[in-house]
């Protein structure tokens, strides 16, 4: 297994820039989740790695092997890159049986027949699909087809495994199972896995590290999941991972104010640059606690019980914000009722420049 390095990759479709000066280093033997909104260039990056498209600039290296280098004019064709892929739509060939599908990469390596059979069956074993070896893909469910695709990617000792949204089409329970399965496979093979998704939940569950991509095709933040959740590098990461509330802040002669239709004084600390105006306060729903001693008051609009937490909508002035109360908190401090006025406190407020023209709630 090997590490993967993207260096200064730029790619355009006509005038539409998909990736711009994109660099990322995926360490050997880790699962890295590439997370970003739809259309941010995740799939384009993968296709560049696979050799299905040719970037304009930069280089791609796997281990010590240069797969692509624009300056040196190196472009290893797709079939010689030795990368395993599970496509978003599985891409299981409908005219071949499960076994034929999984054997195909070995056949292209011109391995002896006996070895092909053995290794293909072994790969099917890993994904618990041996009994379906002679089925055609149209006789399989979506989850099973997906496992065939994974087996096909596993069957050769690829340097890197790429999975492009491999589980979005599965039901919740199967999704959970597959995530565990992928983790197990990675441990067993000590594989380097690049896992593409827009679903942060499965990313959090699976990854060693997360790479957050922004709409304009640049890397926003790269780090462990804790780092990304607890120390978001910018507003985009903060907003993209998890739920967030935003309230504009303005400076008035008698101190900082929250602009919620009405101006409401804000007692907390505000960094100097945010005090100059044009900034918003961002806070996660689970970082807001009820505290009747707080001068900041809000009215409870609604409350929903979600099993492991309570979900509230509160009105602060004209502004509606979302609050999550954990069961522990609810047990110890009690719950707030609809129509009540409560005091609230922001535990972990951040300040970001306001986005132009965007409605933030």
């Amino acid at each position, binding site marked *: 297994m090997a590490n993967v390095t993207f260096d200064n990759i730029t790619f*355009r479709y006509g005038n539409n820039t998909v990736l711009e000066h994109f660099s990322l280093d995926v360490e050997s033997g880790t699962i890295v989740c590439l997370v970003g909104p739809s259309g941010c260039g995740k799939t384009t990056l993968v296709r560049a790695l696979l*050799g299905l*498209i*040719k*970037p304009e600039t930069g280089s791609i290296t796997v281990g010590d092997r240069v797969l692509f280098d624009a300056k040196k004019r190196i472009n290893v064709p*797709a*079939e010689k*890159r030795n990368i395993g892929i599970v496509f978003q739509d599985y891409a299981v060939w409908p005219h071949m049986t499960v076994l034929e599908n999984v054997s195909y990469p070995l056949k292209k390596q011109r391995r002896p027949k006996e070895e092909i059979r053995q290794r293909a069956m072994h790969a099917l074993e890993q994904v618990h699909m041996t009994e379906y070896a002679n089925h055609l893909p149209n006789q399989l469910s979506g989850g099973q087809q997906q496992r065939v695709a994974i087996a096909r990617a596993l069957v050769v000792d690829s340097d890197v495994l790429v999975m492009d949204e491999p589980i979005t089409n599965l039901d919740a329970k199967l999704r959970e199972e597959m995530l565990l399965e992928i983790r197990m496979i990675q441990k067993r093979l000590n594989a380097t896995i690049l896992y593409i998704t827009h679903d942060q939940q499965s990313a959090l569950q699976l990854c060693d590290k997360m790479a957050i991509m922004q709409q304009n095709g640049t890397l926003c933040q790269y780090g462990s999941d804790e780092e990304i959740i607890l120390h978001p590098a910018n507003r985009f990461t903060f907003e993209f991972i998890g739920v967030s509330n935003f309230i504009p802040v303005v400076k008035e002669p008698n101190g900082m104010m929250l602009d919620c239709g009405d101006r409401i004084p804000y007692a907390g600390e505000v960094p100097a640059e945010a005090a100059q105006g044009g900034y918003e306060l961002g806070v996660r729903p689970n970082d807001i606690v009820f505290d009747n001693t707080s001068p900041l008051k809000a009215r409870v609009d609604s409350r929903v019980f979600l099993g492991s937490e309570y979900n509230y909508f509160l009105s602060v002035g004209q502004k509606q914000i979302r609050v999550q109360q954990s069961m522990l908190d609810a047990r110890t401090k009690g719950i707030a009722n609809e129509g009540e006025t409560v005091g609230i406190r922001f535990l972990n407020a951040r300040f970001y420049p306001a986005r132009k023209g965007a409605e933030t709630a």
Partner: protein
Amino acid sequence: MKKYYGSVSADLAAVDGRKRLNMDKIMTVLCFVLLMIIVVIPIVMIIYNAFFNEGKLEVEMFVQQVTEKKNLDAMKNTLVIALLTTILGTIMGVFYAWLLGRSDIPAKGLMRALFNIPYMFPPFLGAMAWDMMFNGRSGYINKWLVQLFGLKSMPININSVWGIVFVEVSYYFPFVFMQVVSALERMDPTLEESARISGARQRQVIWKITLPLVKPAISAGALLILTTSLAHFGVPAILGYAKRIYTLPTRIYAVIYNSGGSFDGIRQGAALSVMLVVVVSAALILQNRILAAGSYDIIKGKSMRPTLIKLRGAKLPLFLLAILTLVLIVIVPLVMIVLISFLKAYGLPLELKNFTLDQYKAVFSMGGTIDSIRNSLFVSITAGIICMFLGTLVAYVVQKIKPKGKGALEVISMLPYAIPGTVLSIGVILAWSGRIAGINLYNTIWIILVAYLARYLSFSMKTSSAALLQVHSSLEEASRVCGASHTESLADITLPLIRPAMVSGFFLIFLPAMREVTTSILLYGPHTRTLGVQIYTLRDAGMIPQAAALATVAIGIIIILNTIVTKLTRDRKGV
């Protein structure tokens, strides 16, 4: 920023690098060259020769042709016949589609199969049969009616515009019928049910909900009738000639035939061709307008069980009407042709003592007959195979390689679809009788083959194109990543996946080419008659029973081939 490559394309073509001539480029160039030879050159030759003579612009001939009364009459007839055929054929198609698709009329499966027969039956043979029955001078049924009722003149004259319309309608209404029946079957039944629940009566539901929803299917079928009828040669040729009722296609044939195939005649034909193409293009544009105005996405791909409407008291009469229609348009002409084929001489009463097998012997002892069957088989199979591969090649280039100018490629390959067979023949004559690079194919079988290629290429391109759209590009990409070269992934993945479509594309060409007459009637030479031409010329020479005998054989061949094809395509469904 520095740019390292002139252009970045985002498809598999880019993957092979730009170091040498790769397969994609070869395929693209090949496509353009072949389409240029097969399609563009003949069309250019028509336009050139209609307006130029010996390298000089000369519009007089064109103006004179276009303003000549005979030709204007022919144009009027063409339009009248096409419009009437379209209107009546559409009404008939929609009515029977609704009856078989939505009502509880009995014996549906059998009737649907029978209603598709006119579709595979060559219309000019039907015209022959109707001419035998209702010819204004000598029709058998006409004579019988005169005897029976002591009439003074023949009661029905099929050699008229209305006669032509009648025969065309009976062979072209399946275009609408088939489109609408499948649309009706795929329509979500809840759309009608909710109308009923909202308080609409059965009749209102049909008029306000069902019909508007299948309108796109109706107009698609109607267009097919319109363009086919505008370009149609066989029926007006057989029924109209005797009374000098010409349409543009038959007029073009007459002009060339009368001039003995001289260059001037062909040039006049080219001028008339331009006229015909203008009319057909106008029809296509009109249709585009209409279709664009109303498109619905309510008809779903998956099949649902529509609610059937109970006909109650009307069930028996409507059933009888459907049966009667089938008998009239399918069985009666067939029986008539078979009966006449056994007659000792045309005109004798249809009695057992006048029956003989001599006509069959005579037809097959004639040199041309076996040749014509062999010729037809040869050109149909060859055209089918070449078009199958060429159509797939064009479809692959357009759908997957997507080079610059793919739009042009697509338009060129679909162009002959809008160009009448007669016109295409003239283009082929102008192009390949020695005027270009000294290549002279005139009077050889190859000129017919070239014309068939142009005429039928769009058929196979359409089916292959539809199949390729179903093959998601990730399937080919997956095989590349698994270690297959571009050529290998084509051979291992793409081709096997579209093979069924390629095969059905072949039959889609082979079957109509077997009974083709419009194109080959202008192209045949002494030794290169096709089956259709042989029947037509036998009849033209007055050997009607022999023509009928050969027609019977032709119908037999068509039925056998169709049965084989249906069997074959059914077996392949699983893939």
